[in-house]
């Protein structure tokens, strides 16, 4: 079933020929991503770079070319659809009658096999100079051919041409934007040094306000106290956070330009950038103070990896609230409302807030932890509190559970373990030392909350967010009117891929799990079945972790 026909009933019986243009492009993107992942694991660019001039070029420019291609594809398709929807609809209509090019698909597989064989040949000892460049040249041609074969198998050449023509000069604008972004991104390194010097001065000023015995060495960019010192590297200059806020602000002002009061709203961008830059100095000063207070492990561990993102989230949220609520910046100011009114006016709240609460609590707990997240129970209490707050809203959902959910949950558990084993997981790894060394009460308490969260709050919050909200929201803006039994292939894939992306190195297992939990919900037409499947997997994983010392899975 296609995105263009959301009102029809869905079925799991389908043929590839019924894919709309977006489903085909998404499938293409997934195939390329998986193949790229395999190639990047098999071939180490840095290791091969010294063997030939072409390989040296590929190692140096490959990552930039890749970023450019990904950026171009994402921007072209998104803005193409937004600006030239009729063109994409017409192509989707044509594709409904055009089957996948099986011959071209076979050619793609053959080209990829050739890429694999040439990759192995590049690693052979005893070849050098011209031979290496020749093999690398063939490798490049085979790779480009593989991409072309797959692209034309999914969407015929004539329809690619129609897509480019139908979107006018979008290809030119997008290419220019991507090249400019790559050039600016690369040359921005020149700003790192002066910005890090300013950051250094700001950190020194902040520290001298609250601490004694501050030592600063501007020549080596080392600052701290007698107990704890850090070197402010160029990459810590505050440039990344400022860049993120700049991008966020520009996207916001473009998307919601009709609501913004111009030119006043433009002030939000430099204000956001300045606040983010200042917060980076605060982050470094706080890191030094935490380390100086004796919590070196927290300073070097959780705090540094979370503080930057917490600052970004705070500033981006502040930007959004100011842009929506402050009459100076908006033409249509929104007012805050009490909880009951919020859930009836805004159904998104009850579906997303529990999951966002877990993410937020996880970031805070992580920032206040060293190598071990002692504050994990915070995630449980925060999510449980929010779920309780919206309980009236959830009472209208169907929470009944049959045999399918737990059966799928068990299947996902076995699959998870299998994928973990196949990807080289350790045979067994012991309980974290900090936890093992703690008192029995502390240990049992922490484990109890970890299991409770895995079995109760996490499955409910994640299923509400990914299956209850995202899967249905990708079908219709009024997602609550979409029955739990309905889906489109695009909504199924996108929601599952995003769910997988949140599972770190086990992303593939996460994608499959997402698809299967969605299957449970769609098959039975109720969210309870997906929650039961998810909870079953998590509880079995918890038992597996505890019984067989597989702590890396937590």
């Amino acid at each position, binding site marked *: 079933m296609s995105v263009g026909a959301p009102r029809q009933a869905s079925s799991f019986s389908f043929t590839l020929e019924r894919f709309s243009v977006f489903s085909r492009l998404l499938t293409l993107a997934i195939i390329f991503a998986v193949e790229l992942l395999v190639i990047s694991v098999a071939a180490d660019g840095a290791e091969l770079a010294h063997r030939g001039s072409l390989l040296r070029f590929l190692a140096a420019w490959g990552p930039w070319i890749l970023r450019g291609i990904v*950026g171009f594809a*994402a921007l072209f398709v998104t803005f193409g659809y937004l600006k030239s929807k009729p063109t994409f609809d017409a192509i989707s209509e044509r594709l409904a009658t055009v089957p996948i090019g099986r011959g071209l698909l076979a050619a793609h597989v053959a080209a990829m096999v050739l890429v694999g064989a040439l990759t192995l040949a590049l690693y052979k000892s005893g070849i050098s100079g011209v031979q290496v460049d020749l093999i690398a040249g063939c490798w490049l041609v085979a790779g480009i051919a593989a991409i072309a074969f797959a692209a034309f198998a999914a969407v015929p050449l004539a329809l690619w041409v129609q897509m480019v023509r139908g979107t006018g000069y979008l290809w030119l604008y997008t290419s220019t934007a991507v090249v400019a972004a790559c050039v600016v991104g690369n040359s921005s390194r020149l700003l790192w040094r002066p910005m890090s010097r300013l950051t250094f001065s700001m950190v020194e000023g902040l520290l001298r306000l609250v601490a004694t015995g501050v030592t600063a060495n501007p020549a080596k960019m080392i600052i701290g106290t007698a107990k704890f010192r850090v070197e402010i590297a160029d990459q810590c200059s505050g440039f990344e956070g400022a860049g993120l806020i700049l991008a966020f602000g520009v996207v916001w002002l473009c998307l919601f330009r009709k609501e913004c009061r111009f030119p006043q709203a433009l002030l939000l961008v430099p204000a956001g950038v300045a606040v983010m830059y200042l917060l980076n100095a605060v982050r470094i000063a706080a890191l030094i103070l935490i380390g100086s207070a004796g919590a070196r492990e927290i300073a070097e561990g959780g705090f540094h990896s979370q503080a930057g993102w917490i600052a970004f989230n705070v500033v981006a949220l502040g930007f959004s609230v100011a842009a929506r609520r402050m009459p100076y910046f908006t033409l249509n100011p929104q007012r805050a409302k009490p909880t009951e009114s919020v859930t009836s006016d805004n159904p998104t709240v009850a579906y997303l807030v529990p999951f966002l609460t877990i993410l937020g609590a996880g970031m805070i707990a992580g920032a206040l932890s060293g190598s071990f997240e002692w504050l994990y129970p915070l995630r449980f209490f925060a999510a449980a509190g929010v779920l309780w707050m919206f309980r009236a809203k959830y009472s209208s959902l169907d929470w009944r559970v049959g045999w399918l959910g737990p059966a799928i949950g068990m299947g996902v558990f076995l699959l998870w373990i299998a994928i973990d084993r196949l990807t080289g997981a350790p045979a067994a790894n012991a309980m974290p030392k900090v936890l093992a060394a703690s008192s029995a009460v502390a240990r049992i308490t922490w484990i109890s909350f970890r299991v409770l969260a895995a079995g109760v709050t996490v499955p409910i919050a994640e299923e509400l967010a990914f299956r209850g909200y995202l899967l249905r929201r990708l079908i219709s803006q009024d997602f609550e009117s979409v029955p739990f039994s309905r889906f489109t292939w695009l909504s199924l894939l996108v929601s599952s891929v995003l769910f997988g992306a949140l599972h770190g190195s086990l992303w593939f297992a996460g994608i499959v799990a997402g698809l299967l939990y969605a299957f449970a919900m769609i098959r039975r037409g109720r969210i309870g079945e997906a929650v039961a499947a998810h909870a079953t997997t998590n509880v079995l994983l918890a038992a597996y972790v505890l019984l067989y010392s597989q702590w890396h899975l937590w």
Partner: protein
Amino acid sequence: MKLLGSMLLLIGLGSVAFAQEQDVPAPEISPATAVTAVCMISGAVLVMRGRRKK
């Protein structure tokens, strides 16, 4: 749909942009937590903009 698409795009591009290893022990923006953090702000914006149109 425009907002949702943009947020998904942001998550996708954010994941790609921060997927590379960094050699700084304490980076300002840690790649390890990029997906979580971008999901967080995207979700928050979706909630903020999710009010039913009357």
